């Protein structure tokens, strides 16, 4: 009782209680997976870059045609110009410049600044859309499992329809209709991406529902709310965390793909937008297509490594 406070309405209020020892145990298990730690490290780096980078970097949208297609530092491009007077080819060598360490694109925009801006967009879209999707998925999954009967049936049939819907086509369609903005993209991915989570959480909750400790608390007269929030949700929490980590890369890729086909938010620079530019200058400025792709790849890889390690850390049967 000492840890519980009596609220003004006279109800027992439980403080948010985090089992430090359990967190410690999971962290110790996670630590053994070096790839997972490396993934986490890169995600943290990316987050810092996304939060603070844009204040330090130059304007990613600044166009300067004088310095277009500058190669990254350490590389150089050759340009041959036919000189009519001397009837020869004059070859000029353009080396990379320290003020644009990763080069510039075909409009002279600084690659480094654009990549930093892109990391902010990718993480933002990834986290927000996954958040919406998982919230919806968990809510509908637990609800469906708990209600059972026709409500469960209806919800699951609706999930079937959503799952069968050509996801990417729907995305393009809605973004085309409502106009390309980050908000729309986040909402659409969030509103369409909950199906897998709902199904998984539902089946997990269903199997939990028949377990003895739930039966026990029912026998003790616990209310539905109490069972859902005190027993079901905490028991699927690790599942949700793992699912979040593993669905973020899919969202990031979807946003990148959308921007890549020219349906990204024109007001912001994401990795997909840069790739779109780079696609058309593969022969003159390869780095414009290579650099954002590497960032995208490393981000997705990091989330996959980290999520995989998390799953093993949470799985009591897995040996780490």
């Amino acid at each position, binding site marked *: 009782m000492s840890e519980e406070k009596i609220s003004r309405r006279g109800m027992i209020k439980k403080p948010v209680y985090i089992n430090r020892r359990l967190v410690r145990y999971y962290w110790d298990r996670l630590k053994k997976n070096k790839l997972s730690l490396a993934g986490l490290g890169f995600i943290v780096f990316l987050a810092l870059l996304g939060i603070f980078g844009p204040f330090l970097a130059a304007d990613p949208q600044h166009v300067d045609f004088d310095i277009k297609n500058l190669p990254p530092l350490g590389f150089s491009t050759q340009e041959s110009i036919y000189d009519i007077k001397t009837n020869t080819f004059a070859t000029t060598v353009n080396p990379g410049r320290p003020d644009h360490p990763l080069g510039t694109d075909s409009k002279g925009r600084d690659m480094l600044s654009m990549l930093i801006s892109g990391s902010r967009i990718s993480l933002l879209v990834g986290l927000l859309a996954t958040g919406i999707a998982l919230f919806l998925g968990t809510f509908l999954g637990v609800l469906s499992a708990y209600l059972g009967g026709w409500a469960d049936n209806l919800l699951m049939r609706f999930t079937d329809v959503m799952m069968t819907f050509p996801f990417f086509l729907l995305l*393009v*369609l809605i973004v085309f209709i409502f106009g390309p903005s980050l908000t729309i993209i986040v909402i659409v991915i969030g509103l369409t991406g909950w199906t897998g989570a709902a199904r998984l959480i539902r089946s997990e909750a269903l199997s939990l529902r028949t377990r003895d400790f739930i039966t026990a608390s029912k026998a003790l007269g616990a209310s539905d709310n109490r069972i859902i929030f005190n027993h079901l949700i905490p028991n699927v929490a690790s599942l949700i965390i793992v699912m979040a980590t593993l669905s973020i890369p899919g969202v990031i890729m979807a946003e990148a793909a959308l921007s890549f086909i020219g349906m990204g938010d024109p007001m912001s620079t994401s990795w997909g937008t840069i790739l779109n530019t780079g696609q058309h200058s593969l022969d003159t400025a390869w780095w414009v297509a290579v650099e954002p792709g590497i960032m995208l790849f490393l981000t997705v890889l990091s989330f996959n490594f980290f999520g995989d390690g998390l799953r093993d850390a949470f799985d009591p049967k897995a040996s780490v």
Partner: protein
Amino acid sequence: MRNYIIKRLIYSIIIAWGILTITFILLRVGPTSPVDRYILNIAARGQDVESVKQAIEARYGLNKPITEQYFSYMANLLQGNWGWSFSASMPVLELIGSHWIYSFQLILLATIFAIILGVGLGMLAAVKQNTKFDYAASIFSFIGISIPGFWLGLMLILVFAVYLGVFKTYYDTNYPIWSLENLKQLILPVMALGIGELAGYVRYTRSAMLDNLRKEFVTTARAKGLPERTVIGKHVLRNAILPLVTIIMFDLGSVVFGGAYLTEIVFGIPGLGQVSFNAIFANDYAVVVAVTLIGTFLVLFINLATDLLYTYLDPRIRYE
């Protein structure tokens, strides 16, 4: 069994109808009209835009209330009339008929490539668990899963087409479908589309094989004096294939809808993906609805096929 199939077919039709309706509504409440693109030409010739637009809209019934349009579209569809494409100026069915083969060949080849190599590598990795080969396969599959397919496509073009000049940078429709040249120019797209799938299959096959390699019936099979190739290739694989079928079939759906579209855009393959994107941008609703519908039916068909295949593969499962 027959009742089950009939039930599933009816169910599929209902889902397809739901998706059709959502797509139709999304498109027809959109801000642009299907004739906008069409009348640009007329405007350029200096004719009176508004009267022409009204004439066309009247001719195709676009000025009627949306519900009436919807019902007449449905009535037409049931009679096998898929509507008229404004942007391509031909019946939708004809448009699809002349483009589907490009998507089909790409998806078919990529799937075959991914399944054969992926399942093969996954089996090898499981049998050689914890060897160098296993680790290499594991790293490869992580990389393959994390690499965005459309970026991989760009990189393949950059290296093999732009720098090495082994392949053309764009898909050439002049080659007949069954020619060797066509097969050659499909190598890069198939790799771009297939490697992600392949990597996933390696991972799933490996874990499904490992799950079953430790089962008791494997010891029984060995105790019977069966050669190792029968033990692995028959007793283990036949059980490991069960979860794989679900995953591969599910994946096929996402390939049809996601990866293949993007691959078509990167390589300029004039398949249904490009057709539908162009149609979205032109607000050519009949085409979009038709393509969505075909894709949906394909996925529903794949789902049904999976279930039926499952009853064949797993004698424990019987549908009522």
